[in-house]
């Protein structure tokens, strides 16, 4: 094969192919999967390394080589100082492709990773400028360079860098806006991301700005919004296609680099030049990193450790970008172009192959802190949030304008303005971080649960109540339908949780979780199961509703839902009998009430209402008019928050009579207690909640929202209107609240 390629060297890695067809995907993927928070926290350090570090590398390598040339170490070469500097500038930049390729396997701790990674991405701004500046200087010749030119060079740096970022940012916003509007044409959503991303690259390239910076910022800017706006399947698609393209391009780049080496025509060997180059880039990289880190550590809250610095220096890999730039050198201006190309190739091979391969053993040997592989538990996530808030508060108290304060301000700005414009309303509601963590954990539990059940033949392995088992048996059938959706969701979310670009972890590591199942206490089993139910259920419905092309028969849905619901309620009642949780008392109330309203509502109406509640936000208006939601949101401590769908009237006389008195009476004391906690409820709302506490109003509580979360006051304004509406449809309500609660739960 090599012999064949040798005979027919028709292919070379031309700059055009490389820079326009192979590189953008890699960088877009890098930007899209960049952990933003981490990046911006360390932005200062990253910029220092990228700008100052690269300039230092370029200058020192160029000057040293020139010095050696003058000293005669290289024999007879026709290279002037400027050309050396030009060469230095193209060989100085740490390459994003190579860094990604190597560091992705190694899983070092996140600070170290983001430093090297961020630097490799941002230094393109510097590299492009330096290369162009020196290229222009070389064309001009040494004599004509004066201060003006140098100043022009410096200014062009700022223009190129900031201009490129701005272009990227604009395109990022554009993508977000587009995805906001594509609810009905989800098929092409994913395509937009790629097209517009590539467009940002081309636009910057066209304007002679830094294209890499542009596409990086495009990816970074849009990731949050497109993940929120797009359908989950689109998000998955985008993520996987990006990885596919990026990995493919990387591979092709390196293959072509290899093939390009076989071209005999370009081979020029100059021992001195090549060896000295290798030596210098290695040494100066170390020096540069250590000096800069020493300076940075004076200002950093958490200093960068020595070992990390070693790895950072060692990880200064040069790659295809350098080669691409080298091939862009003009033959006529630079006589020794071939030598430079060869040297670049050798440098690339050396760093990528040698340093790349030995990186992992080195990391292990030096005991570098690795990335946390396990996902955070809820406690950790909660605590991280608490820390954030704590720091902001302390900064406020002590009057500092610190990093956290800035971040907080940015978050506020972002939430109030940008998200409003760029995110779909439904997405905005659901974006609470902790809750999504919780949701994902539940989905994982669900997967565990199902696989465990299947492993044991049926889902009967929870031995407590027979009612439970019964319910599960039925539910088990539904699982198979749920599973495809859930799988998609878990893998998606799981991917989302690993912020960095890792090998996609299998969505459920089944073996590990199975032991967990056996250790759980019975009550916790019950509880978790209920959690699973709730969320699984909800997830399924959300998915389903987004399909516009499935041929699900909605009515069939409803029946299943009703049956599941019925069983759930029954089993819940029974399980909560034995549960020791403090949560227990309020819960039955909610169930009862739900049941209550179920029967009261005529079939059609409930269907309609229930459907509204899991349609995303189209029906938000509908639910707003309903004062039930008003009640919900008013006491967010209100227990009625069952996300079960209100199935159409299941006849369940067993439940009908018990519920009203108990529920009615039990609510107020409990609500009173809860209201003390809830600081979100305005007194007037509370009053409203208390007041019309007849069973007729209980009904209103029913179609509990999946989507309605906001506390808008205008929702509260409609109770009277809704009340009348409700009254029309209700059968005459039972008598107003009798005093003592009959402890009647059988």
């Amino acid at each position, binding site marked *: 094969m090599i012999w064949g390629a040798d005979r027919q060297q028709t292919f070379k890695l031309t700059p055009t192919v490389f820079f326009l067809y192979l590189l953008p995907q890699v960088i877009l993927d890098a930007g899209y999967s960049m952990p933003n928070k981490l990046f911006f926290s360390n932005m200062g350090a990253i910029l220092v390394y990228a700008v100052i570090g690269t300039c230092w590398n370029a200058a020192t390598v160029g000057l040293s080589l020139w010095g050696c040339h003058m000293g005669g170490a290289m024999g007879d070469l026709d290279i002037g100082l400027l050309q050396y500097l030009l060469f230095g500038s193209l060989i100085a930049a740490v390459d994003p492709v190579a860094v990604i390729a190597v560091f992705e396997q190694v899983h070092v701790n996140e600070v170290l990773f983001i430093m090297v990674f961020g630097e490799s991405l941002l230094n393109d701004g510097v590299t492009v400028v330096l290369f162009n500046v020196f290229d222009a200087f070389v064309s001009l010749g040494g004599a004509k360079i004066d201060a003006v030119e140098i100043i022009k060079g410096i200014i062009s740096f700022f223009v190129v860098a900031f201009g490129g970022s701005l272009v990227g940012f604009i395109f990022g916003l554009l993508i977000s806006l587009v995805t906001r509007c594509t609810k009905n044409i989800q098929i092409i959503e994913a395509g937009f991301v790629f097209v517009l991303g590539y467009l940002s690259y081309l636009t910057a390239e066209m304007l002679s700005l830094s294209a890499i910076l542009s596409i990086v910022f495009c990816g970074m800017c849009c990731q949050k919004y497109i993940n929120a706006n797009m359908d989950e399947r689109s998000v998955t698609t985008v993520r996987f296609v990006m990885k596919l393209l990026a990995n493919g391009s990387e591979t092709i780049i390196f293959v072509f680099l290899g093939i390009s080496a076989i071209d005999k025509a370009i081979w020029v060997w100059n021992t001195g030049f090549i060896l000295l180059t290798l030596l210098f880039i290695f040494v100066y990289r170390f020096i540069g990193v250590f000096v800069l880190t020493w300076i940075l550590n004076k200002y950093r809250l958490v200093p960068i450790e020595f070992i990390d610095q070693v790895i950072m220096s060692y990880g200064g890999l040069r790659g295809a970008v350098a080669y691409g730039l080298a091939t862009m050198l003009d033959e006529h201006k630079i006589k020794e172009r071939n030598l430079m190309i060869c040297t670049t190739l050798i440098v690339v091979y050396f760093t990528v192959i040698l340093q790349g391969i030995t990186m992992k053993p080195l990391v292990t040997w030096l005991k570098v802190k690795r990335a946390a592989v396990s996902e955070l538990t809820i406690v950790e996530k909660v605590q991280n949030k608490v820390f954030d808030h704590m720091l902001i*508060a302390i900064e406020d108290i002590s009057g500092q304008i610190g990093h956290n304060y800035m971040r907080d301000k940015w978050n506020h700005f972002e939430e109030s303005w940008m998200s409003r414009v760029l995110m779909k309303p439904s997405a905005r509601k659901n974006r609470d971080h902790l809750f999504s963590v919780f949701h994902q954990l539940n989905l994982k539990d669900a997967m565990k649960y199902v696989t465990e059940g299947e492993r044991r033949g049926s889902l009967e392995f929870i031995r407590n109540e027979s009612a439970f088992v019964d319910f599960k048996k039925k539910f088990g059938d539904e699982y198979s339908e749920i599973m495809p959706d859930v799988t998609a969701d878990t893998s998606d979310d799981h991917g989302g949780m690993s912020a960095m670009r890792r090998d996609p972890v299998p969505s459920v590591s089944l073996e590990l979780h199975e032991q967990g199942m056996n250790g759980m206490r019975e009550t916790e089993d019950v509880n978790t199961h209920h959690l699973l139910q709730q969320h699984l259920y909800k997830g399924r419905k959300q998915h389903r509703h987004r399909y516009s092309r499935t041929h699900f028969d909605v009515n069939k849905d409803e029946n299943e839902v009703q049956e599941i619901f019925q069983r759930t309620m029954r089993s819940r009642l029974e399980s909560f009998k034995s549960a020791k949780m403090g949560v227990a008392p309020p819960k039955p109330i909610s169930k009862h009430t739900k049941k209550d309203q179920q029967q009261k509502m005529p079939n059609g109406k409930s269907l309609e209402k229930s459907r509204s509640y899991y349609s995303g936000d189209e029906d938000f208006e509908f639910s707003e008019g309903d004062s039930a939601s008003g009640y919900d949101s008013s006491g967010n401590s209100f227990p009625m928050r069952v996300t079960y769908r209100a199935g159409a009237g299941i006849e369940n006389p067993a439940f009908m009579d018990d519920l009203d008195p108990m529920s009615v009476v039990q609510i107020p004391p409990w609500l009173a207690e809860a209201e003390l906690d809830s600081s979100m409820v305005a007194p007037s709302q509370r009053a409203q909640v208390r007041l019309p506490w007849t069973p007729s109003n209980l009904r209103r509580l029913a179609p509990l929202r999946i989507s309605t979360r906001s506390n808008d006051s205008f929702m509260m304004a409609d109770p009277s209107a809704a009340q009348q509406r409700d009254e029309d449809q209700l059968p005459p309500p039972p008598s107003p609240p009798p005093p003592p609660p009959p402890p009647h739960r059988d």
Partner: protein
Amino acid sequence: MGSSSSNMNHIPNAQELMQETGFSAAHLLRLYERFEFLDRDGKGELSPDDFEAVRELALNPIGGRIIEAFFPQGQETVDFASFVRVLAHFRPNDPNRKDGAQQDQANSRTRKLKFAFQLYDQDRDGKISRNELLQVLRAMLGIQVTEEQLQSIAERAIQEADLDRDGAISFDEFKKSLEKVNIDHKMSVRFLK
């Protein structure tokens, strides 16, 4: 380094405070200026209203708790020394400090965690009960989340952290569940010089 109106002499026990908390003289001075700024009545002590005058704290979900953390059980006011001691928890851990055992330093990992723990544990019984956790979650999770979901989250959190199965999280369990988190990083504020 300070303004003409305040210098180290105004600060009572400055040397001891510096020793105890690890703040430098410049830091201490700056904090004293801030203290005086917050203390609008010039009483020499801060009361909860003074803290609440800081507007941003109202927007902070745990602002109230942080304020309470400054006032140890039963006290109505905070003097400068206590103010500084609380803030000292947030000093970055200085590896070069050699005086005093690591454990005793105001900003050691344990002390920081203790501070965080006390934010949850309002009744100071040494454990975070489900209720206390619920309260914090409720404050932080916003209005979108239903009560049931909150309870589930709290339950789940306790499940994960509660090793001795007593239904509450003790300080040791809390520490253990956060052992992977870089507390120093997360709980440090860079005090301006």
